[in-house]
């Protein structure tokens, strides 16, 4: 392996080991949370709601929950690892190494995206306990999950560099991500909204992600998946460029 590849692989390994070795903090929470969601929204409420878009409510909700888990975990992973490393200064072992700025960013984003992908799989696994999980368009499903987790890994890097206290991480997760996801058509179909709210919802980027994953799973969408995928990919490229630029400038890392 050439030295550049070794550097990248080492940091990805370090990042992945960090969360893999602490499963009670990283893998158990999404399992429990989603088991609760499925019980309440799927089983208890779902029996009264009947079917939406031709599938049972629990199957309709599942893609939304996958997106919710994937983005919060990939975001949390990147923002936490960077912020915690800055807080305890051990990120300096990386930033004073000969790794290129691009390599550093790529490693943090890759590991965080992987964390999001694992969470998605865990949620689908929990879903399987409650219902059957359709996969209508596996290619789209994979593509959307990858682009979403990469995007939020990239955003998490920005958050981790920007944060100056642990509170910032909570604020970003609880007050920005969660509301956007909850109003991102996770639990309902856009069709149930009055026209005004439907239009407002279309400004929420999460709507496109949820619909994309939903298309991959149950084959139904309210928005063209190719357009969503293209836009999300574009946004991801922009966010990653911002990450590179921030690392290059030493934002949050250099005095």
């Amino acid at each position, binding site marked *: *392996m*050439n*030295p*550049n590849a*070794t*550097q990248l*692989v*080492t*940091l990805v*390994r*370090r990042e992945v*080991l*960090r969360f893999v*070795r602490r499963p009670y903090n990283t893998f158990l929470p999404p399992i429990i949370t989603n088991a609760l969601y499925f019980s309440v929204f799927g089983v208890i409420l779902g029996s009264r709601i009947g079917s939406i878009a031709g599938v049972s409510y629990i199957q309709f909700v599942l893609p939304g929950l996958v997106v919710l888990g994937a983005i919060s975990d990939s975001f949390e992973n990147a923002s936490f690892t960077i912020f915690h*490393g800055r807080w*305890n*200064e*051990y990120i*300096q*072992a*990386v*930033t*004073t*190494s*000969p*790794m*290129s700025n691009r390599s550093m960013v790529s490693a943090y984003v890759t590991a965080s995206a992987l964390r999001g992908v694992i969470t998605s799989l865990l949620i689908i696994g929990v879903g399987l306990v409650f219902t059957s999980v359709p996969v209508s368009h596996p290619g789209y499903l994979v593509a959307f999950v990858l682009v979403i987790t990469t995007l939020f890994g990239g955003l998490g890097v920005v958050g981790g560099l920007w944060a100056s206290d642990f509170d910032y991480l909570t604020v970003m997760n609880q007050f920005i991500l969660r509301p956007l996801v909850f109003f991102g058509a996770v639990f309902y179909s856009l069709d149930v909204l009055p026209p005004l709210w439907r239009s407002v919802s279309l400004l929420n980027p999460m709507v496109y992600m949820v619909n994309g994953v939903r298309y991959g799973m149950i084959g139904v969408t309210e928005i063209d998946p190719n357009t969503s995928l293209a836009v999300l990919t574009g946004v991801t490229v922009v966010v990653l460029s911002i990450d590179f630029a921030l690392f290059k400038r*030493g934002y949050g*890392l*250099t*005095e």
Partner: protein
Amino acid sequence: MTDPAIRASGLRKRYGDVQALDGLELSVDRGEFFGLLGPNGAGKTTFINTLVGLVHSDQGTAEVFGFDVEDDYREVRDRIGLAPQEFNVDRFFPIIEVLEHKAGYHGIPRDEARERAEEALKTVGIWDKRDTRFDWLSGGMKRRLMLARALVSDPDLLILDEPTAGVDVQLRHDLWDIINRMNDAGTTILLTTHYIEEAERLCDRVAIMDDGRKVEVATPDDLMARGTDTIVLELADPPRTAPRLDVDGVTDVELTDEGLSVTAMGGSQTAPAIMRELEAQGHTVASLDIRRASLEEVFVDMTRDERDYAEVSA
């Protein structure tokens, strides 16, 4: 191409009201054991941090083996092993893995990284703690680990920012042995310390910094020679008043209980002239004792009031 190991020119860095670096000029030769002394807040750590990219200087340039610290950051960092003043160790992993990771960040393949990590832990004598996390090490072991982590990438330039702060005598000697061996093998060493004895014993040259600037660079011996020594002469027939001594380098003559106390620059060189002068005046010198200035006194002189010092030496 024989660029020096470190060359800094006109480095300036400001934090709010504090001018941490104020036009620092410094050059460290390859293979040198170089000491950086200076009071708290002199800017030593700030300077070191500009070399590894933790501080972005406002002005000036710094080069490491001819590579610019900003433009060629990868080349520079590839050559540096840094043991920083403050502990900054990854607490998620046992220390052997911390070292493996550090080696990996330097592009060293995994198998070799493992070997290097083992070797580094053995070198600093904490091999039996390899599976422990940083938090569970004692203070001295933590210092040892900082050195091990700096060594693991086999650097050409080893930077040690107060490596012996708060460690016991035994460990201090161990650390000295290790870095001396590294230096003998050709590694350039930049050491900051508040233990003057350490600089005196280890360094080829020392720079004294104050207020973000270099005040002086010299060998420890040279510096000590510049200090004012005290020569105490016992005269067979003590005079009532201190005799006038018209000898170059003598700054003060005083009569004390011990005898005649002469303050002079470079005591060992001036002593014979003083004796000749006294004998010419009819005194008989019964005994002579030269008390050399320690590097510590020189250091205190230079940094406490460097403007006065500048006048004296001008």
